[in-house]
């Protein structure tokens, strides 16, 4: 019944009131002439109300005449009448068409590129790389081949293990998984040496295979062979040396040194609570400042809030607003106790060393000295002694 009603609505129908002495006769003749009526209701004073299609309404006049009844239209319903009303409103129609077309055109471009999953790689760098391959705000999304770009990204950018690119609405989602490039290992069947990766004093040498070239207490420089894969035959002098794949651990004492100046008068920032906003419109990737005005704060932190208009989650439109918030800072020069300043400098230096020292090594001893230069400035100098494995494999005859 719903379908029928919908069909009637599309075709259009009129609700009429028929006044006559024999409504039954009217209905019977209508049926005879294939004029179909529905929703017939009896009113008072020989009146009936009924609905019929526009098409059959034209044939109704003859029936009305024959039965001597009067027909009046109560209501016109349906799509044809609605459309007829809008026929004269051309501007409205054109506007509607233009709006739909504009929406379609706008949404067929890429307006947002989202990158997630990167830890060490810079997002800007990745965005730049993607732009080189044709994925940037403002490109047609039909021209993007996600698989091709993903493959090219893996080949072009080092350190990527997997790249997934999905185009959703006007948004391109780039999911990245970074892989750790494995250390270049020399295959087991190829003879190699173990050389020093950095300077140091040897603590222990344990060679499982190969000839030990250094002993505990030796000072080695970077690149020096520690365990040789070249096994010389000590008994028969003329025989060719045997080449093996050297395996072993060489623990050495290494030193790191970092300096950091001691600052007794550090400048501290403090937010005063004063905020000034600058608004800018974002149209098709271009920034238009709304009320360009100078920020009267001498020192401030800038926070950018980017709000872009979007339909749903993925249909990002190229319109947006940027709110730049400036938080005023009050700079205060602090007077620190010398001891505390010294400690802070030493801490920073120590932290810098920690960054350099690998996870596998451990710091055995750390020493802090303070050097006075000619101008009377103090510098903290931290020297740390580590025990670490400095042996790395290198192919014999290779570089």
């Amino acid at each position, binding site marked *: 019944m719903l379908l029928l009603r919908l069909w009637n609505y599309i075709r259009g129908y009129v609700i009429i009131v028929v006044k006559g002495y024999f409504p039954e006769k009217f209905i019977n003749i209508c*049926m005879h002439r294939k004029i*179909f009526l*529905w*929703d017939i209701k009896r009113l008072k004073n020989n009146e*009936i109300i009924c609905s019929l299609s526009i098409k059959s309404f034209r044939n109704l006049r003859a029936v009305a005449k024959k039965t001597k009844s009067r027909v009046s239209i109560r209501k016109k319903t349906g799509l044809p009448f609605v459309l007829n009303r809008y026929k004269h409103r051309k501007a409205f129609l054109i506007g509607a068409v233009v709006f739909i077309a504009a929406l379609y055109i706008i949404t067929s471009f890429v307006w947002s590129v989202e990158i997630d999953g990167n830890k060490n790689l810079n997002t800007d760098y990745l965005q730049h790389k993607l732009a080189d391959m044709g994925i940037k705000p403002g490109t047609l999304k039909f021209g993007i081949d996600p698989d091709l770009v993903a493959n090219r990204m893996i080949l072009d950018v080092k350190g990527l293990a997997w790249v997934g690119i999905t185009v959703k609405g006007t948004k391109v989602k780039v999911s990245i998984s970074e892989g750790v490039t494995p250390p270049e290992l020399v295959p087991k069947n190829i003879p190699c040496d173990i050389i020093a990766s950095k300077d140091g004093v040897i603590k222990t040498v344990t060679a499982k295979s190969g000839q030990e070239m250094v002993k505990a207490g030796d000072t080695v420089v970077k690149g020096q062979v520690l365990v040789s894969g070249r096994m010389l035959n000590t008994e028969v002098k003329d025989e060719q040396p045997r080449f093996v794949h050297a395996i072993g651990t060489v623990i050495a004492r290494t030193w790191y040194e970092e300096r950091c100046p001691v600052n007794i008068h550090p400048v501290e920032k403090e937010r005063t609570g004063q905020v000034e906003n600058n608004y800018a419109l974002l149209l098709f990737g271009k920034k238009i400042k709304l009320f360009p005005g100078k920020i009267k704060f001498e020192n401030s932190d800038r926070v950018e809030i980017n709000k872009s208009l979007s339909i749903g989650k993925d249909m990002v439109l190229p319109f947006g607003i940027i709110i730049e918030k400036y938080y005023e800072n009050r700079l205060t020069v602090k007077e620190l106790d010398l001891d505390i300043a010294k400690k802070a400098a030493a801490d920073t230096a120590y932290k810098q060393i920690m960054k350099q020292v690998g996870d596998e090594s451990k710091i055995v001893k750390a020493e802090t000295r303070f050097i006075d230069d000619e101008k009377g400035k103090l510098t903290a100098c931290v020297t740390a002694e580590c025990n670490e494995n400095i042996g790395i494999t290198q192919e014999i005859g290779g570089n």
Partner: protein
Amino acid sequence: MPKNKNTKKNPKPKKNNEEKALKKNFREKMAEILELPKEVMLDVPKITMIGYRNIIVENYKALVEYENGRIKLNTSIGIIKIIGNALVIKAITSEDVLLEGEIDSLEFLK
């Protein structure tokens, strides 16, 4: 066999009737044997009621009377009188009528 007696008494008009009845009987039997729908074979109305709110009369001939509380339909087997309340003709074609309203009774005026 009372019918035979009647024919003898008044042969002319009743014979026609009897022929018609015979024909109808034959058709009914055929419909039964072939399992065909009877309303098609016999040209009788088919009345379907859904509760007391809806009634569909198929194969009617004409609308005789239409009031809010009373509708009379002419069919091949006589007039069907429907008494009820707020009766509305929801849909009507040359063959069937769909009525809606509170139906109280249905009567055959043979």
